[in-house]
């Protein structure tokens, strides 16, 4: 008889829970054929216990640029924000002098997101529990009309990845987290050598083919890479404090109309090695569309307001950005 093992039972249960949550949230009045209104951009941060999620969140809270960021975490106490920045602090919430807030995950996430939307934060970052499959939370967000899931970002610790993937209990969960993510941040670059980083990159690529992988050090990552909303208009992100791992970027301005199905099939092919992309283009009927790229995930939505016709492309290397630029330029010839 085909007996389930412990880990397959775990997987069945996780799979079943995800199926239920997919169905549950799909019946809510979410985004139909999208005509985008300005709304709350939500980024989900996943990663196994000890991977470095909190460090990333702390960095972003302390370096929000012009954005008002709300961070939702499991344990507010664990986010040790620079004391100079703290305006007010309770066990449930830390308010910062730069306009950002860090609050504890409430029982009702959808209610909490509605409140943050009403308080007009620009961006919400949610830290998923280290032992959770991010699918469930992502479905909550898809089900909320005032929210837009900008991306799922995973943090992985290259120093423990090998060992975790050999543990069948952890491997299935960790794999689900990495497969769900659109961008993978390999943390602790300062604690690993080149060999370890390459090994971790190979492991992640094997589990989640096509992943965009970035090495980071002490949680330092450009806000524009983690959060699409940080790419303000079509200006390129810059964060002077990060010099360890600089990014390459460029702006492509369409020479004429682009058809959305052409843009869609270009993105579908999966040749782009971009970390992020954001911008607007118009079709032959002068309908305006917003394009967003997070790693291998992308979206094209109707855009109601006016916007500049240009697309920002961000990559880890100059060659990736140059290749992407060539592909986008080819849309002008279609």
């Amino acid at each position, binding site marked *: 008889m085909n007996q389930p093992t*412990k880990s397959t039972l775990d997987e*069945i249960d996780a799979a079943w829970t995800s199926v239920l949550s997919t169905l549950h949230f*799909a019946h809510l009045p979410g985004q139909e054929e999208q005509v985008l209104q300005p709304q709350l951009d939500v980024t989900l941060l996943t990663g196994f216990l000890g991977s470095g999620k909190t460090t990333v969140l702390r960095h972003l809270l302390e370096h929000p640029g012009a954005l008002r960021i709300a961070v939702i975490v499991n344990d507010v106490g664990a986010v040790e924000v620079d004391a100079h920045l703290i305006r007010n602090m309770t066990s449930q919430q830390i308010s910062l002098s730069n306009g950002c807030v860090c609050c504890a995950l409430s029982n009702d996430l959808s209610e909490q997101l509605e409140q943050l939307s009403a308080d007009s934060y620009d961006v919400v970052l949610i830290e998923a*529990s280290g032992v959770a499959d991010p699918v469930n939370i992502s*479905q909550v967000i898809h*089900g909320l009309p005032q929210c837009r*899931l900008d991306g799922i970002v995973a943090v992985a610790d290259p120093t423990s990845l090998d060992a975790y993937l050999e543990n069948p*209990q952890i491997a299935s969960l960790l794999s*689900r987290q990495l497969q769900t993510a659109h961008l993978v941040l390999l943390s602790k670059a300062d604690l690993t050598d080149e060999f370890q980083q390459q090994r971790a990159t190979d492991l992640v690529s094997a589990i989640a083919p096509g992943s965009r992988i970035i090495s980071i050090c002490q949680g330092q990552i450009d806000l524009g890479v983690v959060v699409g909303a940080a790419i303000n208009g079509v200006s390129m992100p810059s964060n002077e404090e990060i010099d360890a791992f600089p990014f390459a970027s460029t702006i492509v301005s369409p020479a004429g109309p682009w058809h959305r199905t052409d843009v869609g099939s270009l993105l579908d092919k999966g040749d782009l090695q971009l970390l992020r992309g954001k911008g607007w283009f118009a079709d032959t009927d002068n309908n305006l569309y917003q394009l967003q790229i997070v790693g291998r*995930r992308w979206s094209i939505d109707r855009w109601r307001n006016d916007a500049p016709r240009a697309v920002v492309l961000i990559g880890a290397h100059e060659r990736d950005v140059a290749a992407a630029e060539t592909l986008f330029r080819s849309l002008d010839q279609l």
Partner: protein
Amino acid sequence: MLGHTLNDDAKKIGGRSRYVVDDQGEVMEHITVYPASQIHTMDPGRPKASAVAVSEGRIVSVGSIESMQPWLRRYPHSIDDRYKDKVMMPGFIDPHTHLRLSGTYMGLEYLGPVDSAAPGGVRKGLPSRDAVLNQLRALVAEHSDPNVPITAWGYDPASQDGHLDRDMLDQISDSVPIWVIAYAPHIVYANTPMIQLIGVNDDSVGHGIGRYPDGRLNGWFVETEATARAARPVAQQVYGPNAGRTAIDRMGAVAKAAGVTTTADLVWGMADGFEPEWNDHASAIADGTLPLRMFMIPFEPKLVREFGSDMLQFLETKRAEGNERLNTHGVKYVNDGSYPSMTLVMNEPGYLDEDGAHTGEVPWEDMVDRMLPFWKAGIQIHSHANGDRTLDMTLDTLESLQRIHPRFDHRFTVEHYCISSPAQARRLAALGGQASVNIYFVHFRAQLHSEHGFGPDRSEATARLGSLERARVPFALHSDFNLVVTPLSPLLAAWCAVNRIGADNETIMAPGERISVDSALRAITIDAAYILNRDDRLGSLEVGKYADFTILDDDPYEVNVTEIKDIEVHDTVLDGEPTN
């Protein structure tokens, strides 16, 4: 009803004719006798019988055809020998389910590669893509409404020979929509009619909408955004206006097939409100599609929110409106999370790793005040406690209630009782409480949690029935069928309780917590009736009780203890009427 019964209205006693003649002048009162090869009455005083006599839904006599002659000589009767080769027991009682809630999901067929628990029992894994396609072909063949999609979950492209796609599924059917969500649910597969229902076409643009190399849609919807989109038409079917009633009918059939004749909905009012949920059950009973007795146990926070100080009056009104098939009973509190999701609240040393423990909607410090009105009104309290920390709080609360307003025979019930200590069992006994226990986890989940969440000690000793029995705490077994993947099957529950075999099918989990076959069978019949405070009418075959029976192919007292779960349920009888 024949003669006198204790439960008739007092004024009718003695003043009643033994023969009632209807409009057509026929004698209505009639005894039906069901002989069986073996009858276990679960009345320890008269444990075995070979026939049971029934009239107007009640038991007239239990014994043999010879022993019941004093009744049969006086009244018209017939012998119905359809069960003469079968084993008869009192109708099984699952005292804690969520049929209406869980039924909404149960339209999903399972196509996964490994055996999986499901409400009707264990579903076999399918080894290959061909096996999956054959299964889908069989589902199409018996599918009645071509407008309703066939929905399935669990496909694993890695171990079942690669992805499904649109053309492949169109070969199965190009008219019935087919929707399959994968085992790792990051992809939905759809055939052409399903793609149309989802509302995308070759011109649609969106991440995760899969295509063949020629640009035609291939029926894949990949990653959360696209799967959410593909799930929308199915979700609307699952959650549509008739979903509650459909769910009750579907799950009623599952429960009946498992031999259940009585169950309780433990969160009445929570999902769609008290009246809609009541009305769905009432209409299902009226239409004959729900062959069960239903106890509707209201979810306290909803009761408080909706009715405030009128909550007891509301329950009284519903009690008057209810009847022997559908009625309100008790009140329900949910005070921590669940076992499989590792959200229950535990004492030291706590979880192995990070946990998501939560305490439920009613603040623990308010518990005594919240329970007191019901306690004083004599309404039975059912209080969910999965973790041992939550159980401590529950016992503290019960002790406070006893100090404020001492009561006997209150039947305060701890629901689930997953993680506990022998000391807690003895304290529960001292306070006069009882337990309704989810035993399925011992087999399906406990070993997993040895390394994941609870650690070895507490995982092994999940659901301590032996300790409850030694402390003389009355207990029942339940399925709680809802969102966790455990089946709804009282015989499987009894098997878990007697054997306590882990998921590896070898290890005996905490051998001293096993109980005898008789105790386990009591826990799904007479003791489950006691938990619901209806052992005066239900749970054993005794004169005057409801004629609810479960008919089995084999005798659970005679088969090898490891085979109790494999006994086939042949039929159930409700109010004296076979339900098949």
